[in-house]
């Protein structure tokens, strides 16, 4: 695993997130569930908590957008780049953007939002890409049945190097 050089992650353990908009590809309830579950991947192995807020600015702002979308990294249409997220800091730090030109799904017919979100939230929490092909933080997309997903050891080691292990 790798962490962002010079970034020790969030200096608090209770983080908030807000879903700014939805993809039309999935029912909103499925998006909510995929996002919640993606956060749980990380909160299961660390002392971190994630609370959804509906108003005001949150630590991790989640949005779907196509092409140019108010950062320096425009999306590229279908396939290629699926999403990106920013390392912990104030402002845009921690935010996760998903390319609306992709087809998002809760299954395997398209890109599974849970899998991609779990990876992006790894960045939001301070993990850089891993060079272990079996790691969630490896840069390329590999479908895993969400019900069978468990966080690979490399990622557990990575996130616990920043926040420690969950004690209860």
């Amino acid at each position, binding site marked *: 695993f790798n962490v962002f050089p010079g970034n020790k992650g969030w200096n608090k353990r209770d983080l908030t997130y807000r879903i700014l908009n939805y993809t039309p590809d999935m029912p909103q309830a499925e998006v909510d569930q995929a996002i919640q579950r993606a956060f749980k991947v990380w909160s299961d192995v660390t002392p971190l908590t994630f609370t959804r807020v509906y108003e005001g600015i949150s630590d991790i702002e989640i949005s779907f957008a196509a092409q140019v979308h108010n950062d320096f990294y425009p999306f590229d249409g279908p396939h290629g780049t699926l999403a990106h*997220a920013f390392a912990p800091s104030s402002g845009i730090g921690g935010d996760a953007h998903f390319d609306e030109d992709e087809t998002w799904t809760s299954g395997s017919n398209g890109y599974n939002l849970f899998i991609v979100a779990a990876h992006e939230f790894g960045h939001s929490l301070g993990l850089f890409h891993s060079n*272990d*092909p079996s790691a969630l933080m490896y840069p390329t997309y590999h479908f895993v049945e969400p019900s069978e997903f468990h966080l690979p050891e490399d990622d557990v080691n990575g996130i616990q190097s920043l926040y420690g292990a969950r004690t209860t």
Partner: protein
Amino acid sequence: FPAEPPKGNEENDDKFAEEYLKKYYNLKTDMRQSRRKGESPLIQKIKEMQQSLGLTVTGTLDTDTMEMMHQPRCGFIDVGE
């Protein structure tokens, strides 16, 4: 039989790789200018990419590397800025 593989594919691979490396590995150098100087930043970046992806580091656009580069991925740049 052709005496050598068609050059079109190699040129396409090079162009694709250059764009990919600019996008994900912060390749900034003007390739034509560098070639005149006899440098090879493209090969250096290919090696850097292969290392970060856990591939065999060859500095060439081999099959494994090209396959990996065509996979959908996270858009986060793989080098520190």
